[in-house]
C-alpha cells in the first residue's frame, strides 16, 4: 500500500486530467464540412459561437508569456512578471505599513482594558467596510491612484492583524506574566521577552489572514485604478477579448496567492510553540 501522500497525489492528478479533458472536449470548434471561402475564413470560419479557449490553447499562451515574463512594449503591453511585480509591490507596501500600525496598536488594546473599550466601537464600525468603498475618498484625498491602491491594501490588511494581536496579547497566560513580574522585568522587557513570543502564533495567524485578503483586494483595486498590475492586466485582456490571457492570469493570481500564504505559513511555524 502506497503512503497517503502518494495516493492523494494520484487522486489529484486524476482529477486534474479529468477536468482538463472535459474542458478541452467541450470547447472544440466544429470541424469544417466543406472548403471555406475567403470570406468565411476572414469571419472566423464555420465557428459562429464565441468559446472558452480549451486548455491546450491556454497552455500555449502561458508558454509564450512565461518564456518572456519581463518584456515591456509600452503601457498596455507588459510581461506577466512585470504586472505581478507591480501588484506584489503594492500589496507588500500596504501590508507592511498596516503591520507597523496594527501590531503596536494591538499590543496597546490587548494590554489595556481601557483602550480596548475605548477603541472597540471604532474597530467594529470600520472593519466591515469593504476596502474598495474607501477608494473614491482615497483618490480624492491622496490624489494619486498608485498611493490610493496601496491605501486600500493598508486598510484591508489592518483589521485581522489588529484584532488577532489584541486577542493574543490579552490572552497571554497569567502565569507567564507572573513569571515576568517576579523576575522584575520592566514593561518593555515583559512586552518583548514574554508577551510577544507568547502572542506570536496568534499575531502570525492574523498576518496570514491579512496577506490573503490583501491579495484578494489588490486585483479589484487595480481594475479600478488601472495602469499596471495583475488586476489591470486581467481587465485589459478582457477588453482585448483575449480569453487565453484572462485564464492564464487567473491561474497566476492563484499561484502567487498560494506562494504568499505558504511563506507566511512557514514564518508561523517558526514562532509556534507547544504547551
Amino acid at each position: 500500500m502506497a503512503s497517503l501522500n502518494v495516493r492523494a497525489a494520484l487522486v489529484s492528478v486524476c482529477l486534474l486530467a479529468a477536468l482538463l479533458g472535459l474542458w478541452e472536449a467541450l470547447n472544440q470548434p466544429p470541424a469544417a464540412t466543406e472548403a471555406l471561402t475567403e470570406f468565411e475564413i476572414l469571419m472566423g470560419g464555420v465557428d459562429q459561437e464565441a468559446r472558452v479557449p480549451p486548455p491546450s490553447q491556454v497552455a500555449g499562451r502561458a508558454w509564450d508569456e512565461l518564456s518572456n515574463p519581463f518584456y515591456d512594449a509600452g503601457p498596455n503591453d507588459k510581461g506577466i512578471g512585470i504586472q505581478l511585480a507591480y501588484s506584489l509591490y503594492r500589496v507588500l507596501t500596504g501590508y507592511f505599513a498596516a503591520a507597523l500600525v496594527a501590531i503596536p496598536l494591538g499590543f496597546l488594546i490587548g494590554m489595556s482594558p481601557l483602550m480596548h473599550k475605548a477603541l472597540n466601537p471604532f474597530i467594529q464600525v470600520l472593519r466591515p467596510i469593504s476596502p474598495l468603498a474607501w477608494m473614491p475618498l482615497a483618490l480624492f484625498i491622496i490624489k494619486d491612484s498608485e498611493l490610493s491602491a496601496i491605501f486600500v491594501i493598508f486598510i484591508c490588511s489592518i483589521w485581522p492583524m489588529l484584532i488577532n494581536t489584541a486577542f493574543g496579547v490579552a490572552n497571554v497566560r497569567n502565569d507567564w506574566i507572573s513569571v515576568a513580574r517576579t523576575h522584575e522585568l520592566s514593561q518593555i522587557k515583559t512586552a518583548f521577552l514574554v508577551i510577544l513570543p507568547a502572542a506570536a502564533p496568534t499575531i502570525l495567524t492574523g498576518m496570514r489572514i491579512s496577506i490573503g485578503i490583501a491579495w484578494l483586494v489588490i486585483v479589484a483595486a487595480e481594475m479600478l485604478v488601472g495602469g499596471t498590475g495583475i488586476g489591470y492586466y486581467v481587465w485589459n485582456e478582457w477588453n482585448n477579448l483575449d480569453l487565453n490571457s484572462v485564464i492564464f492570469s487567473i491561474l497566476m493570481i492563484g499561484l502567487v496567492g498560494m506562494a504568499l500564504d505558504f511563506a507566511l505559513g512557514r514564518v508561523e511555524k517558526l514562532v509556534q510553540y507547544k504547551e
Partner: protein
Amino acid sequence: MSKPFVSIEQLAKIYTSASDELVVFEDVNFGIEKGEFVCIIGHSGCGKSTILNVLAGLDMPSRGSIIMEGKEIRGPSLDRGVVFQNYSLLPWLSTLHNVSFGVRARWPQWSKAEVLEHSRRYLEMVGLADSLQRKPSELSGGMRQRVSIARAFATSPKLLLLDEPFGALDALTRGVIQDELIKVWSETQQTVFMITHDVDEAILLADRILLMSNGPRAGVAESVKINIPRPRGRATIVEDPAYYKIRNYLVNFLVNRSGERKTGDSQAPTFIDPSISGVGNENSTNTETAALVAAN
C-alpha cells in the same frame, strides 16, 4: 524581641461585593526566620495561596502587611523567588533558557557565558544535565517542575516561595523531587515558605509547620515545630520516634480541629512541639504510634 527575617502582621484578605463581604482570612500573624523551611497546611479555601501571593508581591492584602528585613513588601521582587504549582515555564524557551531567563534578570551585568554556566550548574543539580536543549513540552511533569525549581534556586532569592510544587505529580516522582529539593536546599540554605497538602511531605521538609484553620475567617492556628534531626530521608524518617507523634498531631488537627478557631485569638499562633511527650498523644488512634510511644 527582635523581628524575624520575614514578619507577617495582621494580614487579612476580604472580598467585598455589593451585598456582603467575604473574609477569606484575617489576623494572620507569623514570622519566618532566616534559613528556616516553613510549610503551611490547611484545607482548600483557607487562603494559603493568597498568603503566598502576597509574600510574592503578586497580590495585595486587604489589611495588614508583610515586613521583610525591615521593609514592607510592595510588589514582586527578585529577592523572592516563586515556584508555581503549574511550573509556569515559558514554552517557547528551552530548558536552559528558561533558567537563564531568570539568571539574566538577576545579574544583568553578567556575560552570556557566565549566565549560561550558572544556569547549567543548577540544572545539573536537579539532574537535568541531559535535557538542556529540550522544550518544556518535551519534558514530563516531574522534569518540568525540576526546571522550575532550578530557575527559582538559580536566582538565589532571599526567600523562596513554593506553591504546592508537587501537587500535580505522581507519588513516585514526588518522592524523587522531594529528595532533590532537600539536596538543593541543604546546599544553598535558603529560607523557604511552602504550601502543601501532604502531611508527610511537610514533616520531611519543614523545620516548622503552620496549621491553618478553615475558611472563611481562616487564620494560622498553630505553629508546629519539627525537631527531627537532619539530614532526613524518606525511608529513614519514619523510624524516628517523633515522626508518628507529629504526624498524628497534624492529621488530628486537620480532621478534627481545623474547623474551630478560637474567637479573639488575633495574636501569634500557639507554638507546639509534639515530640515532647504528653502532647498529641491523647487523640492517637494509630496502633503503630501507640507501639512507638510504648517503646519510648
